[in-house]
């Protein structure tokens, strides 16, 4: 394992005050954005739908946007694949994918190269396009 920190002066800047200053500006930017969002909220609030009614199912039931792609996968999966229940298969495959993502550093331990990085870029873009397409499909359907 290499030493993570370069010791020379010209390759680095001090954490305090130089880098803290940069982060201070980021924080100021976010606070200003939050206040602008707050002003918009005063002018037109987030609002509420009708109160919850367990007896009255709305026509289009949807989860939050970040679970929409998952919901769409479960919707389009056929109900029966080779004798296994489709929904269960979908959920399990998502959980397995999550575990693979979580343990990815243990599968990909080799020294990094430019080529490997571009492959990762391609995989990321493909995955993003897939998820965004599924999300839009779930939103409009």
């Amino acid at each position, binding site marked *: *394992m290499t030493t*993570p*920190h370069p010791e020379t002066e010209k*390759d680095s800047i*001090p*954490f*305090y*005050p*130089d*880098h*803290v200053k940069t*982060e*201070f500006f*980021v924080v*100021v930017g*976010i*606070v*200003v954005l*939050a*206040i*602008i*969002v*707050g002003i918009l*909220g*005063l*002018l037109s*609030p*987030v609002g*509420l*739908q*009708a*109160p*919850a*009614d*367990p007896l009255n199912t*709305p026509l289009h*039931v*949807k*989860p*939050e*946007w*970040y*679970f929409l792609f*998952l*919901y769409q996968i*479960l919707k389009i999966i056929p109900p029966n694949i080779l004798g296994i229940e489709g929904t269960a298969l*979908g*959920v*399990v495959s998502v959980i397995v994918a*999550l575990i693979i*993502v*979580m343990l*990815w*550093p243990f599968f990909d*331990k080799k020294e*990094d*190269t430019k080529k*490997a990085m571009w492959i*990762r870029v391609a995989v*990321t873009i493909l995955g993003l396009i897939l998820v965004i397409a599924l999300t839009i499909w779930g939103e409009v359907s």
Partner: protein
Amino acid sequence: MTDSSRKKSIVGLIVMFVAGILLIATAIHVQAMSTAAQAGKFNWPLAEEALTAQPASGPAATIPPPKQEPCLSCHITGENKNLWTPLVRWLVFGTFGLIFAFGVYRSASVWTQRKPWKPLTVRAATWVDERYQISEPLSKILKKPVPKYALHWWYCLGGITAFLFVVQGLTGIMLAFYYKPTAAEAYASIQFIENEVRFGAAIRMIHHWAANAMIVMCIAHMLRVFIMGAFKPPRELNWISGVLLLILTLAFGFTGYLLPWDQRAFWATTVGTQIAGAIPAIGNLALVFLRVGWNVSEATLGRFYGLHIIVIPLATVAFMLVHFMMVRRLGVKKPL
């Protein structure tokens, strides 16, 4: 700090201050508008009359009627004059008094001791350091150099996520002051926050959008780490804690979505917990754990509220500490 950076910091603070003033101004404006809308038209003489007309005697003369709703703009719109005025008076005159007393003390001490004045910040720092002896480890942490390759904007994404978590914590505490996690009152308490509580609509809007932004930033940070290969040894545990933090962020969103207790919240939770119920073998257990029963009910609301404001925040803070400490120890990975 150099001169130009100090100037920039001051400009930043001024921008923040101006934005805050704008927020307060909007709140006053919105409140004045709603008051005017309620009364048809705001009537100055009527307000004056209401203020001056006091019962002459009896218990009502000694005990003032309870104020319906304290309001910030009252000294401007004319009603309810006595609420904020004393506080403002104390703050203004108190500040002047403190500054005057400090000036007298400083002049006297410089004059009697014949020594240059040491700033209060230096005195306070010395006092604390004598007791905690913190300056040496602290300066070690603060002086750790940051490599120049780690100054691109995309290294900010994780920090933005962390700061958004702070924003969520603060606005979430403010909302929790007024929110009631029961089926009968949840919806009405959200309406109360939006319509009655000062800045309530602003706080709810910030909480709503910062939650979405936090998820986006979290995913962006994760993709950045993945693309740059920063998950490779020796940073595996950082990646794992990061994925756990993403799951916790999504759990924040999932549990928070139910709390308004409207149709969308109720049915989104019904669908979401159904998905959890589809897991083989432990599905029903997960479903019953989340719903506290077979259906989404008031018990579900209580469970989600507890998870949302106590369990998940504590877990997130713990994992964030681990995450940050490892980032500090290992530093930023050198890009290819």
